[in-house]
């Protein structure tokens, strides 16, 4: 295998294996492999480290994309905002990592939540700026009626999904701050879904291309981020901690995909 292929394929193999390990942990937690070798403490530490690596790499590559785009390019601020959003998430994860690596604990709520919450306006703004940049490109992004229809469908789906998910989360008897955070994350994700759906529509038109590959990776990363937040809120508030491996799998996959997309975009800009 050539160096080029190895450097392209290897990170995806690592990501795939890591996600498979976390999913396996959720399905067969009592098996010998997970009881003796891949113990919960080791896996939580592995997840913490992987998330840190992907988030830092993603933030750095997104910033490099911003740097490679000329001033005045409407996509430049979007990559900057994405970089800041990932960096904020990285700092949040950095606050949690010592607890996870050393003590096998994930304190909630904690100072990390400040940075996680801060990342949302940055990520939402990144998607909105990107949407505007694509509109300014003069390339077809769908008619106004089509965009309104997509926004309407997403809003309806969000409302239908939000009520059954958020009601039990909000009605649990935990401390108010816990409940507020457990509701805030999925709500912010639902806000994120709106520009995400519109961008996915654009990305479909780019399928089979190098730019399409970038956007497929970045946007699917955001989809998994939303899924991870919703799972986290649901499992946390209902005390279903045995399902945490799924949360680790979705977050690791989300950060890995976004970082991979930023890297592909950087390759495209520098090739």
């Amino acid at each position, binding site marked *: 295998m050539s160096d080029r292929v190895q450097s392209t394929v290897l990170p995806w193999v690592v990501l795939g294996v890591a996600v498979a390990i976390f999913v396996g942990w959720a399905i067969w937690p009592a098996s010998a492999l997970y009881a003796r070798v891949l113990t919960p403490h080791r896996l939580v530490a592995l997840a913490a480290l992987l998330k840190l690596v992907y988030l830092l790499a993603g933030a750095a590559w997104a910033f490099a994309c911003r740097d490679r785009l000329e001033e005045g390019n409407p996509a430049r601020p979007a990559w900057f905002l994405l970089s800041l959003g990932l960096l904020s998430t990285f700092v949040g994860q950095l606050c949690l990592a010592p607890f996870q690596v050393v003590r096998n604990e994930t304190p909630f709520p904690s100072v990390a939540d400040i940075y996680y919450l801060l990342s949302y306006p940055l990520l939402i703004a990144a998607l909105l700026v990107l949407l505007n940049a694509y509109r300014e490109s003069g*390339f*077809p992004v769908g008619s106004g009626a089509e965009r309104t229809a997509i926004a309407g469908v997403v809003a309806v789906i969000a409302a239908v999904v939000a009520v059954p998910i958020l009601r039990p989360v909000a009605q649990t008897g935990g401390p108010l701050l816990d409940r507020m955070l457990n509701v805030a994350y999925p709500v912010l994700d639902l806000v994120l879904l709106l520009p995400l759906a519109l961008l996915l529509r654009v990305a479909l*038109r*780019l399928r089979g*291309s190098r730019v399409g590959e970038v956007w497929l990776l970045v946007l699917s990363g955001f989809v998994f981020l939303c899924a991870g937040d919703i799972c986290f809120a649901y499992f946390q508030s209902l005390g279903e901690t045995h399902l945490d491996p799924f949360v680790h799998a979705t977050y690791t996959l989300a950060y890995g995909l976004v970082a991979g997309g930023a890297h592909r975009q950087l390759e495209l*800009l520098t090739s």
Partner: protein
Amino acid sequence: MTTSDAVEAMVKVMGPYIGDTMARSATEAHCQKLGIAAGPLPTDRLDALLAKLGSGLNIFLGRDKSALVMAEVRRALATLEASR
């Protein structure tokens, strides 16, 4: 060179970067906006079309890469013209 021949050549070059679907719909949308009809394509209209496509590609690829792709498009169009 006819408009449809030029569009095919442009889609062939831009396709790997932004996909055949986007390349074709972007080119056809710009043709429509610039009032370019089927049949022979005048040079001044062709230049206007290439400028529009180039500025759109900037968003996705950045100025430098976009300029390289548009140069590739011009070469493909020159080859097409020479082969007639």
